[in-house]
């Protein structure tokens, strides 16, 4: 008789705990889901911003800005000095030829 009462109490306690745990798991799952969709939204945003960055840096814009605001000109061989690579940089190649 007494053991039954104890078991009943244990059962009630365990049921209440189950209710609590399943509530908690749902809450956590909802949080996880929210975080995941946030991640997706941030991914999308980053992709959008990358694309926007790129459209702000197209050759057309860069060239116009360089020409108009910075007064630059396209380089031609006439205004370019070509420098030979220093010997150190091509050392492995140089070593084979005595």
């Amino acid at each position: 008789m007494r053991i039954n009462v104890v078991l009943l109490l244990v059962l009630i306690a365990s049921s209440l705990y189950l209710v609590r745990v399943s509530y908690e798991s749902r809450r956590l799952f909802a949080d996880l889901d929210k975080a995941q969709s946030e991640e997706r939204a941030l991914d999308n945003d980053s992709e959008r911003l990358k694309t926007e960055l790129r459209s702000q840096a197209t050759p057309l814009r860069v060239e116009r800005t360089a020409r108009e605001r910075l007064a630059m000109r396209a380089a031609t061989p006439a205004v370019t000095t070509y420098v030979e690579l220093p010997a150190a940089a091509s050392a492995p190649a140089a070593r084979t030829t005595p």
Partner: protein
Amino acid sequence: MNHGFAKKNAAKARPAASVRSLNYSTSPLLAAPTPPWRSKLLVALVGLGFALLLGRAVYVQIVDAAFFLKQGEIRYAHTIELPANRGRIVDRNGLILAASVPAPSIWAIPKDLEGDAASRARLATLLGMTSAALESRLNDNPNFVWLRRQVDDPVAKAVRELGIKGIHEVREYKRKYPEGEAAAHVVGFTNVEERGQEGVELAFEKELAGKDGTRRVIKDRLGRVVEDVGDSVAPLAGEDIGLAIDSKVQFFAYQRIRDAVAANKAKAGSVVVLDAQTGEVLALANYPSYAPSDRRNLSGAQLRNRALTDTFEPGSTMKPFIAAWALETGRVTPQTVIQTAPGRMTLTGSTITDSHPHGNLTVTEVIQKSSNVGAVKMAMTFTPREMWELYSAVGFGQKPQLGFPGVVTGRLRPYKSWRPIEQATMSYGYGLSASLFQIAHAYTVFAHDGELIPVTLTRPIGGAPSTPVSGIRVLSPKTASTVRDMLHLVTLPGGTAPKAQVLGYSVGGKSGTAYKQEGASYATKKYRAWFVGMAPIAHPRIIVAVMVDEPSAGKYFGGDVAAPVFSEVVQQTLRMMGVQPDLDVKPQIVSHEIPAEEESF
């Protein structure tokens, strides 16, 4: 007080005693006997009620359980579509040419729509329409109308903040093309459902399109996802496609051809830039072009990728092939003299003429001065089959293996049906047709030491630097090099295209000019001018082909109209590729020796 209370109670009790004396059982109303069937009926009704409930329970739980389970699930379980991202298209340096960005579409249920006139007016301005247009849109259908497809994210956010009931949005994606019209013909575009319609978007549709995933979940009262049920299918994002195009070269080529078309009052123009060592397409630009972001532009002739889809008779650009084959087979040497006087020759009743009579020309000079008679005299020593095989070997009459939509084959008739006059005209490029791209591709034979290399439009993303490829050998390296020297002379004084010269780099190429064919005959005042060449001439790195359609500002020779574009494109492309000049350039930076003032001591 206490006494009064008791008295009152006593007074009250007295009539009560008389009530208690009343005998209810003697009431005539209650005396009527209850018939026994009544109580039985009541019990039977209650029993029937229970039986009905039980029957219903059995029906719901056992007989039609599946239906009710399904109905229940519909109310709490939801299938969420997980849209897959379409892959990006990037150029050889990883710069984005096309990418998908979220662009929500706004829709409304007009019969649910609330909001005062002011907020509706705000909505109309946000969506870029007039209030009247918005109202008429809303009157179309009381249940569902699109207000605007694919607006920008910030606009959607502003609409959300207006908080008008009855306005909803659905997630959609939109393609963005940062390079805009410069690369439009290569990259192509998609429709509103993100399916490729043109260009690379269409050619690589299968790779670019991802696979949408789904997920089945249980949602609670507040619409939060609380549990996953069943299997979820993860979305499979589309692959990124890397192109061999260099967006800087592409832009520059586009800009130059656009300016040239405007300056020559021409109808259209195209530029093709090929890497002569790897066969990669570095640029493929056409004018007129279109901005792929605006759907109103997506129709008409401007969509044509003229470099690939328009064929024309390649004209003088074929002469180097004839000279090369004559050299290869030992029929001539570069110094062999060919008599071209008096600038015309008659063959089976038809006359072939040069623009100026030249007299005696060496084979080199025939190419340099572009003499039709000289080319015909060399070509008539070939058998038709030999010549057909040469032309097919360099890709004429064959579709370039680009995997690109709309690439044309051009026209090269079978040699068995050639009449002698046709063989003669074909030697200087009439009677067959090719696209500008085919001509540029054919010139890889000269640029790549006699091999026709395969062309490619794509390049693995982040792949190792491309290595030179080998192709099908058509000519010996020695012949190719000899022809390159001839092509170099074309751009020197005495040639047809000195304007093709590039500061710092040696170039070689061949100009072409032709009357445009209209129907069965040639139009008299309509020309097409083009130039195909390579640089640096000793070890070509790039092949550039330029075509200008109907130049009508006075100049119409390939050497005058197309060669300057070639020169500018070569200059910029080689500089961007870091190719060192092979010609001595007189530097414009000069440091003067200024005599120093003598110090007094």
